[in-house]
């Protein structure tokens, strides 16, 4: 690893992402609690969920990415350019969130060194 500076850099970023996962999940929980129909709160949720989907894929946590993507697609069927929340999905949110939390916990458990700075 030490011979490959790029791989070393990416490994550091990967550990940082896993270390940030609990905080990102907590931020999503908070944003969901504030979720209304206004553009601001809807967009805030969309940005966090979308970011989890992208970063999960980027940093070797495919389960986190898949769970976040499922949640994003359910909440925002209009897709990337449109943060329009489908209120009918409210009932499904606890299940989707639970799946995302479980995936995040598994990722943290599989990367015990991620807690190290």
């Amino acid at each position, binding site marked *: 690893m030490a011979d490959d500076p*790029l791989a070393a*850099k*990416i490994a550091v*970023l990967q550990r*940082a*992402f896993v270390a*940030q996962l609990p905080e990102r999940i907590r931020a999503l929980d908070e944003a969901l609690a504030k979720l209304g129909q206004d553009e601001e709160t809807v*967009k805030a949720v*969309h*940005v966090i969920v*979308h*970011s989890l*989907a*992208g*970063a999960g*894929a*980027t*940093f*070797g946590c495919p389960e986190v*990415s898949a769970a976040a*993507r499922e949640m994003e*697609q359910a909440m925002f069927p209009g*897709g*990337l*350019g449109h*943060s329009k929340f489908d209120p009918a999905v409210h009932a499904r949110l606890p299940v989707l969130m639970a799946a995302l939390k479980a995936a995040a916990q598994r990722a943290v458990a599989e990367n015990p060194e991620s807690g190290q700075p």
Partner: protein
Amino acid sequence: MTVEGLPVLKVLLVEDDPLQSAKTVALLEHLGQRVVLACDGAQAIERFCSENPDLILMDVLLPGPNGFETTRRIKEIAGTHWVPVIYLTVLGSHGNLVEGLLAGGDDYLIKPIGLEILEAKLRSVLRTLKLYRALEESRDNLESANAALQHANRELETFTYAVAHDLKSPLRAINGYSTLLASTESSALSADGHEYLRKIVEGTEYMGRLIDDLLEYSRLERGSMNFERLDVARVAEALHAEFRAELDQRDAHITINIASREITADRNALTQALRNLLSNALKFAAAGRPLEIEIGSRKENACHRLWVRDNGIGFDMRHHDRIFDIFERLHRSEDYPGTGVGLAIVRKAMQRMGGRSWGSSSPGQGAIFHLEWPESQGSQLQRTRVPDENGP
């Protein structure tokens, strides 16, 4: 470090997630690229304007304006200058990318972005960028050459006009004094002297006609076109009256066959073109048969079309293009006098009216010359009745 065959580009990376941004920066720097960062749409637009990047990697969901909207704005600012935008997205969002590509994006990369795919994509973009820049350089060179050519052309037109205009004055003096000499010093001149003076006067008259034709050609080239509604029958009748003496002298007959009277045209350019065609019809009349001339008009394919037909000596179609060139003549001036500018004026008049002119003939079988220009020329004129030239 630099990667073989991969030039250093300035890449604007638009990504709101700091960790994902850091990884893409690491990959780009590993490939020897220079990276400028923006964390939202507004900052991306600002950095695009201040940093002039070669390439933009754009996350789609951003705080503020999203990646598609940001791309649309950047492309508007860039105008005709092409800066490729590659979206960074996650698997499963392809449907939306249609919208992104329609917004002006050029391609996309799916996360997780690996080193190999990033390098391949950069090489692909570079190939297109290289071609585009060569095209841009050719376009710039062409525009400069075109501007220089237009400038030279304007100077040449001004020069031609000035020379032709200034030549008239000494020519008048030569002609006047030669005529005066022939009349006041008649007895002092030998027969040869009279003959020399006659040739001088003939020469000055020919030169005068040549200068008039060149001035007319130059005026058509330099002057602005003023399209107006005209009654083509009245234009033809006015020319008929102008040529009446010559027509009577040659026992020639004109038929005016106008299917469509109302036209929009530049009066001077059209009259000049028709005048030269009529003059040619008279000049190239066939010996031994009365001259018949027809002036006709009709609308065809959203164009005004006029023609002048005669039963004169005609011409060989092999020479068709040549006869419209300035100073080109098919016959010796001793047989058919003229300056060789007439049909060049006809062609120039039609070119200036956005149209064209052409002829059709065979030797001994007469000729027909057509004038055609789009009806849309002068279409901004209001639909009003053609004014009666004889008054209300």
